[in-house]
């Protein structure tokens, strides 16, 4: 009975928030959990629950899964706005349940913050867990990557549902061995792409075998520590592959899986990985390839994550980077475009970003391809300017403007292609400023 009133109250509050044009992404959950901290246990769920976790790519991948399932005609409940901690999950469920707590959906799709996987799924149904990658990320907030992985590993020891794992990330692949009794492990692997390297080019994790501590050997690195690896001593990494992407062609924006060519809107290697993970989910749930093909071709988030815009005649590419790998993949996209470019890098150090900005030194700014100017902005505009200058980029071509409007004005003083990288709290203000500049907002 208590839950009835909690749900009723949340629904009324949700209506009020809607009228006030507030999203209330976490607030409903926050209040409801105060009233019943085990509320997650009490929802009645009869549909498969699919969850995506990772350091990078959660929102895009989860939204692409939901989009594809919707294309195939299913009713999907999802935390598509990216509220991925317990309060966000509960909010999403409260908005989509009946007064008795029943979730009416064909599928429930969640992105989950890495550190919340055990907490949420010790109380809520889980059928399929997708793990994309683990990178160093806001170390001052999250601690060491290893601590996080051990936490998820502990949870997986008793988990028997589907587990979809990126076999090219040693720290993800190792989780397939957490529960030897789980037969539902699906590994995916992406074949070498054009810009893969023999040596690690960007900061990476997991250099040693987690089982026998031997140094791992790599056949190639795609980006960061993602690549084809194995342990020379205990053969860790040599798994049977469920889905294998090959003929990766970023110019044509396509890749092949089992002889079928998939087109995607983005031209970066990391999105190939994310799409392959979506493909694994769809395959497990027998979603017709026709829907997957169409969804991959059409789906894009348009929220500043890998977004393309035309502003005052300049092609503009905006991407989020809250850790070195996020920035490095954006710089890969920039370097793979040989035209003349300007780069804007916006770096904040607000609470949600982490106060420590030393991660920018793990970004590879070496040999930027045809970058004419770099403009920096944000609360730590000077830190990123120093970082770029030290990498050897001509310091007279770097301009630092802590004020965002000045930075964006300066950016559009030429018609070069624009690349914009912004960290977490910087992303939406930067995107808004750019849209205003282009009179789109």
């Amino acid at each position: 009975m208590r839950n009835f009133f909690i749900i009723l109250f949340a629904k009324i509050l949700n209506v009020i928030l809607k009228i006030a044009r507030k999203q209330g992404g976490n607030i409903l959950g926050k209040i409801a959990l105060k009233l019943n901290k085990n509320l997650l246990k009490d929802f009645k769920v009869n549909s498969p629950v699919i969850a995506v976790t990772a350091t990078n790519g959660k929102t895009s991948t989860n939204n692409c899964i939901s989009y594809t399932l919707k294309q195939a005609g299913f009713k999907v409940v999802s935390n598509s706005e990216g509220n991925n901690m317990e309060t966000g999950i509960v909010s999403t469920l409260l908005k989509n349940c009946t007064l008795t707590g029943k979730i009416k959906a064909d599928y429930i799709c969640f992105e989950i913050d890495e550190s919340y996987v055990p907490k949420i799924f010790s109380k809520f149904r889980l059928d399929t867990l997708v793990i994309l990658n683990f990178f160093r990320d806001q170390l001052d907030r999250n601690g060491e990557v290893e601590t996080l992985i051990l936490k998820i590993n502990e949870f997986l020891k008793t988990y028997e549902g589907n587990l979809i794992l990126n076999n090219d990330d040693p720290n993800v692949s190792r989780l397939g061995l957490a529960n030897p009794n789980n037969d539902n492990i699906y590994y995916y692997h992406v074949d070498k792409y054009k810009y893969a390297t023999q040596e690690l080019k960007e900061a990476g994790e997991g250099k040693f075998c987690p089982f026998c501590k031997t140094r791992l050997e790599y056949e190639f690195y795609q980006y960061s520590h993602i690549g084809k690896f194995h342990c020379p001593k205990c053969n860790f990494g040599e798994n049977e592959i469920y889905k294998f992407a090959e003929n990766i062609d970023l110019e044509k924006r396509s890749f092949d899986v089992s002889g079928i060519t998939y087109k995607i809107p983005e031209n970066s290697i990391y999105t190939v990985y994310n799409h392959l993970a979506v493909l694994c989910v769809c395959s497990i749930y027998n979603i017709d390839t026709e829907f997957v093909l169409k969804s991959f071709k059409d789906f894009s988030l348009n929220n500043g994550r890998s977004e393309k815009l035309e502003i005052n005649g300049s092609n503009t590419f905006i991407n989020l980077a809250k850790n070195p790998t996020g920035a490095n993949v954006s710089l890969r996209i920039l370097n793979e475009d040989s035209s003349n470019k300007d780069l804007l890098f916006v770096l904040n150090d607000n609470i949600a970003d982490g106060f420590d900005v030393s991660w920018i030194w793990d970004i590879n700014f070496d040999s930027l391809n045809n970058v004419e100017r770099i403009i920096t902005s944000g609360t730590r505009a000077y830190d990123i300017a120093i970082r770029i200058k030290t990498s050897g980029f001509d310091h007279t071509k770097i301009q630092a403007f802590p004020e965002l409007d000045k930075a964006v004005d300066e950016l559009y003083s030429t018609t070069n292609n624009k690349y914009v990288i912004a960290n977490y709290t910087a992303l939406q203000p930067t995107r808004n400023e750019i849209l205003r500049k282009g009179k789109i907002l």
Partner: protein
Amino acid sequence: MKELKILYLYPDILELYGDFGNIQVLKYRLEKRGFSCIIDSYSIGDDEPNFNDYDIIFSGGGADNEQSILSKDLIQYKDKIKTAVKNGVFFLLICGSYQLFGKYYKDVDGNIIPGLEIFPYYTEAINDRKKRCIGNIVISANINGKEQKIIGFENHGGQTYDVFSPFGTVLYGNGNKFGDNKEGFFLDNVIATYLHGPLLSKNPELADYIISYCLNRKYGENVTLEKLDDSFENLCREQLLKHFTH
């Protein structure tokens, strides 16, 4: 052409907080002034380096797990590293390496990772994994007879005890221990500190102190360093000092 040789220890293992930036800053400031800079690296499995052949030896911080793997490797060079310190080779040691050059590091689970015992301090982690000294930090250090504000970021669980010659006095942040007023360890040719940032990126005067020290030692003269355009660094320092100390 005058040159300095830098040895980077365990670049593939001790590289958690962008500490390699310190070497990049040194290289940048040397090359801008027409000096050359050679960077060699050493890691597990490589041939033994000649420590005395270098002007600067740098080592950074890493994850706990990886630190214990390399402690075993490093200890085989204990005597040779001691000699290099005595000979005046400059050592810049950040975080985990700071700890490894002391007597020992006791981790959260109580395991003792032996140190090189080159300096008499020791480090013990707090029993609680979640309790770490994390945040921006400003210290005052005596560089070339002048008190300088040094800015960095600390993130360490280890509490370092028995430091007879600290790097500086804490103005903002923690230091060697929670709520300590001293940070790091400092001799003429050794700076061992918890300051990430990387340290030298925000403290160009400190970078130049190391460069002068090494050039003077190597070439036996008083080298005067040409002034560089540090406008980004100065604006950065101004902004951060205002932000932290107000």
